[in-house]
């Protein structure tokens, strides 16, 4: 499989072949929040959930916010990779792998938040042994398991040809790459089998991803709690998930573009397209948010209005208006006119959306619990250092996993880039001719 074409993409193999000082510095830097998180979890494990800010009635705080947020981020891989692959968008080629990796990494981080939130992780056995499918929490466990399995498969399959390149050219970790390459030699039959499998997975992973975030929303909307019991929560959560997923992908792309010198692969045009996608999603998110809050406000149901006022002008107003600023105002200002400095503008918008979407999850989870429908005492939640540590540790762990992945596998799909050069250009030309109404001069 190794040939002169590989030397064209030497930049993609360099991070795996060589490890510079920057890598060790990055690992050292990331280990700080991870150690903080580990210490926080250790304290919580021995002392119990009393060391957190969780109490009655607010029994879900940062942990469930993180859970919803991370599961949302995981939609990056599905949307960018599967949809763009199915729609034959050629600009997807340098992006798909990064998106798929985000999906797999954050799914593990997101699912682990539930373990942390349990306080007693041994009680997870109760879910396995005595679970009841009437509970949306069990729907969640099932759909996330399916999504995790599908995402790992969908990440692994397109990596096989690249793993074979590493097996043949790298000279280290030969056993590891040989096992994972499954005897790939790049024959026509093997390519046919792999393309068919990737196509099946691309079709399958989209409804699974949509169902996952719908089911995450059902955990809230199946209750009769004020501002949770909403029929649009499913699509609202899915839109938010795709929105935050694109933003996270853009941030990852820009970091690795700079760190590994991938400017030839990740060009301003890619960021322009993703920026436009982000802008569309920002408008869509605003539309759903507006519809959700307007309906609640117009109904003026007393219990709903308590939560509504707490968000708009009460103790949660900073989070709420911060969310509107980060998710709508800043992206709109940055993305409406992408003239010069495209990458910088798209990065600013994406960072803003990542923060804004975390705030959005917080604004959904906590205020409703602070003002419950039942006659419980009301209470405002404020996290302790333990929750802050867990949150920082989760983000650090995600970044570390991602970084380690880039030391074992190419972060941009080599074979897809090569396919784009050799086959893609010709295919696009032929496809374009079929779209046009008249015969193109000189073509049949």
């Amino acid at each position, binding site marked *: 499989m190794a040939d002169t074409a590989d030397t064209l993409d030497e930049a993609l193999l360099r991070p795996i072949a060589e490890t510079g000082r920057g890598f060790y510095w990055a690992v050292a830097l990331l280990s700080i929040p991870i150690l903080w998180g580990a210490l926080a979890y250790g304290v919580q494990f021995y002392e119990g959930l009393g060391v957190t800010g969780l109490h009655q009635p607010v029994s879900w705080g940062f942990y469930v916010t993180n859970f919803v947020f991370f599961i949302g981020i995981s939609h990056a891989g599905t949307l960018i990779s599967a949809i763009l692959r199915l729609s034959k968008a050629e600009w997807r080629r340098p992006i798909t792998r990064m998106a798929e990796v985000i999906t797999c990494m954050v799914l593990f981080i997101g699912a682990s938040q539930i373990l942390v939130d349990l306080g007693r992780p041994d009680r997870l056995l109760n879910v396995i042994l005595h679970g009841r499918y009437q509970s949306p929490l*069990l729907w969640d466990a099932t759909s996330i398991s399916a999504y995790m399995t599908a995402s790992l498969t969908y990440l692994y399959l397109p990596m096989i040809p690249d793993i074979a390149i590493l097996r043949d050219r790298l000279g280290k970790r030969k056993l590891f790459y040989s*096992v994972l390459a499954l005897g790939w030699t790049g024959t026509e039959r*093997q390519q046919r089998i792999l393309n068919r499998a990737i196509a099946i997975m691309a079709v*399958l992973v989209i409804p699974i991803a949509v169902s996952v975030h719908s089911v995450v929303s059902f955990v809230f909307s199946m209750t009769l709690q004020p501002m949770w019991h909403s029929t649009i929560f499913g699509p609202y959560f899915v839109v938010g998930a795709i929105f935050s997923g694109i933003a996270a992908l853009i941030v990852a792309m820009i970091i690795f573009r700079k760190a590994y010198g991938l400017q030839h692969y990740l060009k301003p045009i890619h960021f322009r397209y993703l920026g436009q996608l982000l802008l569309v999603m920002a408008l869509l998110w605003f539309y759903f948010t507006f519809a959700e809050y307007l309906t609640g406000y117009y109904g003026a149901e007393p219990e709903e209005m308590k939560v509504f006022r707490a968000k708009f002008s009460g103790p949660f107003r900073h989070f709420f208006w911060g969310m509107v600023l980060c998710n709508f105002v800043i992206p709109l200002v940055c993305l409406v006119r992408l003239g010069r400095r495209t990458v910088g503008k798209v990065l600013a918008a994406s960072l803003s959306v990542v923060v804004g979407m975390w705030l959005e999850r917080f604004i959904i989870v906590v205020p409703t619990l602070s003002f419950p429908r039942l006659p419980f005492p009301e209470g405002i939640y404020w996290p302790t250092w333990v929750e802050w540590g867990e949150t920082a540790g989760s983000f650090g762990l995600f970044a570390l996993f991602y970084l380690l992945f880039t030391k074992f596998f190419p972060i941009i799909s080599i074979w897809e880039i090569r396919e784009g050069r050799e086959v893609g250009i010709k295919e696009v030309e032929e496809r374009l001719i079929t779209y046009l109404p008249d015969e193109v001069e000189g073509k049949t």
Partner: protein
Amino acid sequence: MENPSSDFDRLVRTLQWVWLTVAILLVGGIIAWIVHLIRTSWTLGDVPSASIGISIVAIPIFIVLMSVVLYVFWGLRSDGRER
């Protein structure tokens, strides 16, 4: 591909089978868990329709995922062996 009878190749083949077995056990375990939940709800008369409804969707998805993995595993390895 190297000499197919070499120790290295035998080790690679063994590890590939281990890898596939782990994948099958993972998916099989999830399916067994879903079946266990159905059986529990059936035994307790605890709204088994919910369990059956969800499993009608969930179990085929896992089977399809496993089938795709098996198809690729079998297809790539058999082609490599023929060569």
